[in-house]
């Protein structure tokens, strides 16, 4: 079967959207909405530090947990994921990020303590306005998309069970946010749940707690967990050979090269095609000294670093790592940074191909990519460093 083209995918997404709007026209033309929130809560960044904050509710009852749990999305069709997301109606209210003691924020924080969907009802100031284009102010490659938005008047939920682990961290106001994040991760809480807790200012020392825009909370969570894992991995033996893992989904092509090395270093390169077919490449790199700049590829970097460190931790080995990501035109709508995290996790679940030489490993990686090996190498600081800088321990 031929791969659907970008235009075909776009058409299908648009048809789904129109179908959704017409099926739910009755629900969406009212100033109230009842449905099960996954739970999902959004904290905007526009207007910071006075940001839009609010719950997301689909016009759907029953179990909607999957709508805001990206860990369950791998292997699904992009249309299905966009359906989940675009059906989430967001009720927003402008709030100062320090204003965490209000009843409104308190109720959203309570909601974030549950990991299953909850029946809820939102009352809006006016009818939710549907949108499906780039004009959406908050459309961001780091965020999962969402549906109609309206100013919120009130929000109520049915009662629900809270997760004990989340609750303990929430009430521990002497534990730093970093330790709180690492603790929850160690206890097996999904990264998406942890970042929701982070964005609602529910971790850390009492005096430091504040709301964090959703997209920043995602990067911060990936950053904190992977930084913690890097320290642990350093104590493991190094891998024996060069390895390449591959995975493709939603028009994103991933190759992960693991390089035997005593010291940690990490690079992620992204190549994309613009409307005219021109290629852009973004590259960010860190050596064992750590990252010395905010990555140009933003949240993708931390998502990639989390997936790689998680894998190395699971095999109890250390390595240097290079991620190559190609974004093809079939990736018609950015579905959020989770797609990168899960794509690279997916790649690392696939069986690796092993090599004795770096060049052979890279050639194999590039064999299924459209950008040439030469081009990737030209942009690679990890490669330049490996080739050009010796170490004291070599002498």
């Amino acid at each position, binding site marked *: 079967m031929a791969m659907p083209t970008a235009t075909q995918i776009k058409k299908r997404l648009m048809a789904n959207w129109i179908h959704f709007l017409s099926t739910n026209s009755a629900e969406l033309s009212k100033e109230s909405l009842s449905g099960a929130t996954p739970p999902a809560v959004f904290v905007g960044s526009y207007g910071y530090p006075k940001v839009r904050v609010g719950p997301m509710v689909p016009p759907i009852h029953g179990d909607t947990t999957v709508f805001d749990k990206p860990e369950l999305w791998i292997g699904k069709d992009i249309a299905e994921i966009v359906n989940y997301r675009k059906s989430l109606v967001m009720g927003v209210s402008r709030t100062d990020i320090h204003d965490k003691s209000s009843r409104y924020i308190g109720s959203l924080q309570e909601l974030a303590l549950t990991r299953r969907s909850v029946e809820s009802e939102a009352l809006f100031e006016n009818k939710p306005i549907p949108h499906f284009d780039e004009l959406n102010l908050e459309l961001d490659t780091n965020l999962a998309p969402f549906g109609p938005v309206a100013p919120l008047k009130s929000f109520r939920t049915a009662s629900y069970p809270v997760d004990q682990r989340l609750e303990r961290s929430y009430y521990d106001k002497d534990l730093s946010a970093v330790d709180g994040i690492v603790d929850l991760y160690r206890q097996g809480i999904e990264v998406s749940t942890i970042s929701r807790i982070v964005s609602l200012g529910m971790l850390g020392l009492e005096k430091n707690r504040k709301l964090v825009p959703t997209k920043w909370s995602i990067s911060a969570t990936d950053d904190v967990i992977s930084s913690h894992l890097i320290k642990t991995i350093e104590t493991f033996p190094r891998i024996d050979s060069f390895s390449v893992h591959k995975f493709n989904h939603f028009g994103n092509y991933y190759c992960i090269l693991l390089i035997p090395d*005593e*010291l940690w*270093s990490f690079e992620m390169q992204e190549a994309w095609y613009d409307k005219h077919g021109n290629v852009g490449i973004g590259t960010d790199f860190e*050596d*064992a*000294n*750590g990252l010395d700049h905010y990555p140009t590829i933003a949240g993708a970097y931390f998502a990639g670093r989390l997936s790689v460190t998680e894998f190395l931790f699971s095999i109890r080995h250390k390595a240097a790592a290079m991620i190559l990501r190609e974004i093809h035109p079939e990736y018609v709508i950015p579905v959020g940074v989770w797609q990168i995290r899960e794509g690279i996790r997916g790649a690392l679940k696939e069986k690796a191909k092993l090599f004795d030489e770096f060049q052979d490993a890279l050639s194999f990686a590039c064999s299924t990519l459209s950008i040439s090996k030469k081009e990737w190498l030209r942009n690679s600081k990890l490669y330049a460093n490996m*080739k*050009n*800088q*010796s*170490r*004291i*321990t*070599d*002498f």
Partner: protein
Amino acid sequence: MVFVAKTRSPDEWKVILSTISTLVDEATFEATVEGISFRGMDPSHVALIDIQWPNSTFERYECDDSVKFGVRIDELSKLIKRASKKDSIEVSMLEDGLLTIKTQNDYLREYKIRLIESSASSTPLPKLNFSSKVVLSASEFDKVLSDVQVVSEYISIETEAKLVEFRGKGDSGEATISLNSESVGLEEIEVKEKSRATYSLDYLTRITKAVSSSGGTIAAEYSSKMPLRLECRIANIGRIHFYLAPRVQD
């Protein structure tokens, strides 16, 4: 166990700490009967610092055993910086897990800081023979590095007979700084054989800035395509050795 080390001013600790902070955030010192020493590499193993701070350079020094103490550099620096120019600094270990710092001149300050877990691994020194040696005043060396840094991230050092050339090359152009035995600032040059090697300027400028504030000289020794060793002799400290691994490309 007794460990007390007293210096006449805060300057000695300031130089030591700012030197170490160019490579790491945390440091493990070792105090023995002979004095205080430190050795450590930066996380990417490109540079190494080896400090010998002999007992004779202290105003008072007592240590009857060998003891390691780990500190966070910025935490200790903050305390040392509270001292006035003429304050004496006394560092001692009176309680387990705590380092006591007393500064005294006009009035007495006493700080206690919590020690951190000290790293147990010992770093071996690279085995090197040097074929060239140039000695410059620290401020002159700092100037030369800045001259090259205008165009390049790396510096090539080339020595032949009585001439040393520092070169850099970048996207915008090239730089060549030449010094011979007549040049001001070049105090000594000794070339056993023509040598050339390239090093990262980033590391070099940071370490040079850290030691040049206290004056003194820097002796740079190296061989072709081998690590560079800077020896900094500073009043009341003894010596600091800084090793830097070369760039491989030419």
